[in-house]
């Protein structure tokens, strides 16, 4: 693939339009990126795309940004990564800037207030729905440690008011220790069995 000006323009316009027209955040944009880069442009193959998304999901930051960085990096190194990041972050910056200006003016408007009041119930339901799905997914794994972590961190966040970043760091460190130990035990037992 030759990397001329046309290629960079295409990379920028692809990420820009993807970001500008996908409402609903990371879990919506990722399938659309797959469609664009794998099926339409054939810049990335199917399996590679899955790997890129998996890594993007496990790294900090918005998934859409992370996936753009990885696709951009694969196609054209650091320059490609920065260009696709710019393409993905510009649309929200432009759109929300405009809305924010109107927000200050319209906040005291009766109709806008009534709409926002009603929508608050809608958004609460949407978030409840997401939470129910996620809790169900954790319960479905039947991993007792995952369920325990979920309960303990919930108590820490809601009742003890412990900082979210602290909770994430603590459970990350705990996970690293606990699960690497399990692996070690399994290896250990296997070796024992082999010795017998």
């Amino acid at each position: 693939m030759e990397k001329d000006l046309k290629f960079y323009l295409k990379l920028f316009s692809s990420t820009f339009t993807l970001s500008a027209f996908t409402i609903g955040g990371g879990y919506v944009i990722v399938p659309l990126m797959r469609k664009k880069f794998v099926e339409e442009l054939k810049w990335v193959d199917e399996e590679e795309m899955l790997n890129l998304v998996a890594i993007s999901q496990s790294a900090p930051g918005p998934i859409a940004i992370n996936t753009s960085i990885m696709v951009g990096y694969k196609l054209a190194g650091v320059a490609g990564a920065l260009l696709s990041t710019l393409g993905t972050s510009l649309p929200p910056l432009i759109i929300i800037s405009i809305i924010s200006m109107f927000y200050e003016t319209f906040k005291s408007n009766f109709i806008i207030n009534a709409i926002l009041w009603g929508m608050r119930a809608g958004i609460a339901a949407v978030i409840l729905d997401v939470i129910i799905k996620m809790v169900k997914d954790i319960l479905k794994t039947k991993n007792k440690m995952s369920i325990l972590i979920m309960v303990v961190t919930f108590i820490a966040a809601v009742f003890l008011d412990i900082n979210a970043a602290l909770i994430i760091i603590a459970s990350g460190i705990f996970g690293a220790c606990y699960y690497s130990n399990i692996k070690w035990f399994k290896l250990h037992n296997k070796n024992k069995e082999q010795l017998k």
Partner: protein
Amino acid sequence: MILFQIFISFFLIGLFSIGGGYAALPLIEHQVIEVHNWLSLLEFADLLTISQMTPGPIALNAATFVGTKVAGLPGAIIATLGCITPSCIIVLVLSYFYFKYKNLNSIQGILKGIRPAVVSLIASAGLSILALAIFKNENVTFFNFKLNDINNVSVILTLVSLFFLRKFKADPMHIIVVTGIAGIIIKSI
């Protein structure tokens, strides 16, 4: 100075929101409401509503919204930069190693520990949003409410919305638009 504070706050939000989408919610709430008082809980809920209806990641929308409110357009740009800087650094490093070794199993344990914690944190932030939706007063929470603080109409609206989301897999966008229209009708009566 304020620009620097905005940058740091959104840098932290970008750095610790692992898992995308709603994972950023509790962190934004903490930085923007509790640490800096840049938004009220009510404005935060409006921000979520706007985020749902506009394109782009919640964290970036929040960055622009808060940045604009606190320091105009420069604030919006600085906040957005702060939010994506950790991603840029960390994901570029990960990309480098991935394309070099194509194997990153060592971080699996960390992720397995973090995933359930992220669910709890989202649930905790969700509770404050729910409290805001169903109580009449902004200062009432699940810890100090009385029965007459509950707005019955809001509870019904929330439950009906939840029913359509769970039972018929309704599009969240449609739910939000319909509840907005319901808001006009109910408030006009």
